[in-house]
């Protein structure tokens, strides 16, 4: 670098006040001694002044940035994390409900139904002998009654009608718990003596068999009803959760696509 160039740099920096104390003293001394350097300094000062007075231009327009210009997606709504969480939570609940419905509920709801079926079958079995007795009693009655009817007038001279009435009254006396019992519709005339005690015991058994299953079946029916209602509410809950999962999930996907991850 020549001396002239070095002096030019120093004078330029002197104009801007960018010299140290020692450099400033040096250049001030030189400017006093050298007329050419002083003239150069003045010209440089004017040039600097001209440049600094350059009219400032105003921006021809506003340079506002839009989200599209900076590749910025729209801000997601504040509810976005809630939507995501709600979707996940509802999905979890739905899965739990399905699992519970599949593995737990069927056992508790099917049990009463099965017990009802069992009770019904027991009742049918209990009624079966009676039916059998009725079936057995009715057809052979005329065959059996004939000799008895024939014998009766001989031995005791009882009229068949009187014997029947007596049998009915006996059977009714033997069954006080049943409030008069369940009288046979067509009692066989010759059967009344042999079958009167048996009929009473059968009726007692029948009463026991019919009263207990009735009470238990009522309870079971109530339980079944409760289970049906529970199942109904479960279906509503599952459906509601499914709707929530779908809606919140779709909303979350929509906002994710539109705004990107929060």
């Amino acid at each position, binding site marked *: 670098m020549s001396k002239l160039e070095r002096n*030019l*740099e120093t004078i*330029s920096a002197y104009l*801007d006040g*960018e010299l140290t104390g020692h450099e400033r003293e040096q250049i001030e001394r030189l400017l006093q001694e050298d007329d050419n350097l002083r003239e150069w300094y003045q010209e440089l000062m004017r040039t600097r002044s001209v440049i600094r007075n350059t009219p400032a231009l105003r921006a021809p327009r506003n*340079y506002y940035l839009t989200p599209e210009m900076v590749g910025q997606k729209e801000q997601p709504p504040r509810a976005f994390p809630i939507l995501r969480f709600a979707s996940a939570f509802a999905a979890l609940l739905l899965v739990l409900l399905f699992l519970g419905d599949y593995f737990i509920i069927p056992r508790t709801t099917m049990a009463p139904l099965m017990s009802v079926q069992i009770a019904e079958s027991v009742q049918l079995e209990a009624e079966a002998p009676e039916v059998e007795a009725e079936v057995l009693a009715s057809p052979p009655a005329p065959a059996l009654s004939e000799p008895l009817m024939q014998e009766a007038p001989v031995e005791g001279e009882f009229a068949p009608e009187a014997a029947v009435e007596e049998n009915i009254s006996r059977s009714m006396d033997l069954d006080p718990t049943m409030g008069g019992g369940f009288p046979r519709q067509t009692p066989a005339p010759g059967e009344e003596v042999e079958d009167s005690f048996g009929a009473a015991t059968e009726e007692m058994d029948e009463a026991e068999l019919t009263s207990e299953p009735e009470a238990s079946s009522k309870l079971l029916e109530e339980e079944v009803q409760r289970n049906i209602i529970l199942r109904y509410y479960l279906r509503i809950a599952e459906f509601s959760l499914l709707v929530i999962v779908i809606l919140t999930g779709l909303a979350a996907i929509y906002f994710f696509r539109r705004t990107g991850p929060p």
Partner: protein
Amino acid sequence: MDEAQLILDAQHGDLDAFNRLILAYQDRVYNQAFRVLGETQSADDATQEAFISAYKNIRSFRGGSFRAWLLRIVTNACYDELRRKKRRPTTPLEPVDDAGDEIESPHWIADPGESPEDKIARAELAEAIQACLNQLTEDFRVVVVLVDVQGLDYLEAAQVIGKPLGTIKSRLARARNRMKECLQGFWELLPHSMRLDT
């Protein structure tokens, strides 16, 4: 709201806060681009690019002079624009008058409050200065615009172009000397107090 808060908000993705910063700095940034590039369309593009780049990189701003940081970005945008121009040179469209002749001085950019004579004189002076600036090499032009047009000190200018202080001092002195020689050709345009001895 103060500048520091706006910068902080912009760093957290607040585009509105950054747009307020743009409003405060767009004239300076555009001036820098125009003085370095010498034409309005390129300056406009460079300014827009600079603000987009600034927003995308605002998290890298670690304090200090925001103005210097912005000027650094727009200066880099100008360098990019100049490189692009060198690769694909284009002929700028000059304004024409009613007769179809080119208008040398785009008077319409002047302050509308001035008298017509002042307006013309001011526009011609601005054009003369710009013509002299355009004669400088890019590196010299950038430094003289940063220090003499934007009013940055040497340290800020060094930060903007990423060069040592000595380089700034040297480039600025040479640039001024060339500007002095150039402006002597336009002495009649200069205000009397600024006229250079020939």
